[in-house]
């Protein structure tokens, strides 16, 4: 099984984590809020889970979940002032928040400063042990490392599906309709009786939770984190998943994460020209698809195409 080599599996791992990150910013964007704080929330989740599992020896699942919860709690605090901000002002404020978190991580002892934390309990090793003890790895004739990584991919895929399903259900709910109305026209929504501040906070907090979760998963997938992992560079990456893939349909950020994580690997043969070509491709894409690859119209076409035969085209509305 050549395709199951550790290198490929690692790329798939990053694609899945990045897809979750892309969804986190998509959730906040679904109320029209452009938050650039998701790298900050990601680092909160990553550090929290790493410290909880290493220093206190807590189980991984607990650490990861707590990482998300902590990010959500911090979002609740900073959201009170920031959700009142509009457009670029919100972007700048949340960008500043991310920087504050990074600098704090750089200076605290518990986060081990610029050196970062290494030897974080690994999800793939934990999962590998599970595979071994059940004899499943042997049955499939996989070695320990591959079995663990494969387990991690499956786990991340399941979490991604959970997050996707949650958001899709949310969009169909009363809350989702309020989100959509706020995104369209905040004042109009308010006049219709929608508590705009409440729903903007809600989407901000859910987005932060998902980012924190992704951060914790990242920490336990790479075993090593340092403050640079969550700098401006990451902010731009996360934003790009949504913008490049399409920020009006949930599959957009997923597609964006897939392409943008894979692209640097595919372009590896270009050596030093890799970053240049990557940048050029971004520019070309944005010229031809300014609303991202997956626009609402394209998504509707694909849906009609997939439903062809089952439902009459266009009959999926209402």
């Amino acid at each position, binding site marked *: 099984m050549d395709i199951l080599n550790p290198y490929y599996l690692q790329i798939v791992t990053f694609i899945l984590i990045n897809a979750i990150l892309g969804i986190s910013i998509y959730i906040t964007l679904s109320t029209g809020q452009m938050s650039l704080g998701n790298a900050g929330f990601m680092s909160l989740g990553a550090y929290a889970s790493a410290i909880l599992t290493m220093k206190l020896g807590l189980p991984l699942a607990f650490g990861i979940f707590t990482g998300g919860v902590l990010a959500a709690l911090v979002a609740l605090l900073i959201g009170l002032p920031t959700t009142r901000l509009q457009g670029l002002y919100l972007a700048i404020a949340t960008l500043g928040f991310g920087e504050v978190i990074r600098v704090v991580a750089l200076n605290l002892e518990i986060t081990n400063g610029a050196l970062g934390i290494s030897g974080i309990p690994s999800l793939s090793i934990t999962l590998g042990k599970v595979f071994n003890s059940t004899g499943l790895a042997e049955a499939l004739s996989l070695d320990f490392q591959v079995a663990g990584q494969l387990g991690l991919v499956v786990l991340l895929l399941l979490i991604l599906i959970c997050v996707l399903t949650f958001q899709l259900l949310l969009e169909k709910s009363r809350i989702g*309709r309020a989100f*959509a*109305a706020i995104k*369209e026209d905040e004042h109009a929504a*308010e*006049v*219709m*009786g929608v508590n*705009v501040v409440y729903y903007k906070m809600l989407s901000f907090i859910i987005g932060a939770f998902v980012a924190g979760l992704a951060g914790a998963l990242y920490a336990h997938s790479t075993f090593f984190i340092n403050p640079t992992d969550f700098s401006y560079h990451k902010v731009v990456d996360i934003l790009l998943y949504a913008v490049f893939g399409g920020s009006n349909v949930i599959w957009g950020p997923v597609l964006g994460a897939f392409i943008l994580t894979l692209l640097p690997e595919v372009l590896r043969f270009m050596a030093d020209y890799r970053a240049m070509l990557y940048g050029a491709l971004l520019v070309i894409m944005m010229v031809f698809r300014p609303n991202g690859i997956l626009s609402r119209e394209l998504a509707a076409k694909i849906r009609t195409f997939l439903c062809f035969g089952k439902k009459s085209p266009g009959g999926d*509305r209402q």
Partner: protein
Amino acid sequence: MLKLKNLVAGYGSIVALKSISLEVAQGSIVTLIGANGAGKTTTMRTIMGLIRPSQGEILFEGRDITKFKTHEIASMGISLVPEGRSILARMTVLENLEMGAYQRKDKEIESDMEKVFGRFPILGERKSQLGGTLSGGQQQMLAIGRALMARPKLMLLDEPSMGLAPLVVSEIFKVIKEISAGGTTVLLVEQNVRQAIKIADYAYVMETGKIVLEGNARDVGRDPRVMEAYLGGKQA
């Protein structure tokens, strides 16, 4: 039903309302007329809680709502049909109407929607169409339909005739009259003074942030100053 007492409001250092007092009696149609920049829209926005007044108070059914938030005011039974209509362009007609009933949880939403389609058949025909693809007149109908979906006690209409063809304007005014007959109180801001005066019971005339004239709509319509300024000279 609605009472404004010495209301002062503005944007930053610009004072747009210089101590406005007006009253809307239950079941009536009251119109607020005046030129551009007189402060009509600001009055509507202040009632809705979108602008905080610096002085004065707003009473709705005897309750002081001056410090209430917009969504709370909406839930109390005041619906605004905003200037420029504010249709949710990327939502369908149906979804726009559903949003209008957002704070309702009763079981009669469906039947109210049928009533809106009965009043505006064109909306029924286009219910799966996106709001942004409707014509101006249809959007105005949708905005009014959406406001009706909230079952308001008081409907605020901000220049519903703006930018519409004369034929559509008469239809909109006919509908406003019907809404009023159905028991909803109406406060109507208009630049189309002739039409507004025709359907209103009482009228206020605003100029540069002040109310300069008020009275029975018919009397206000006959006032030489109003005829001079808004009705194109002295006609019968």
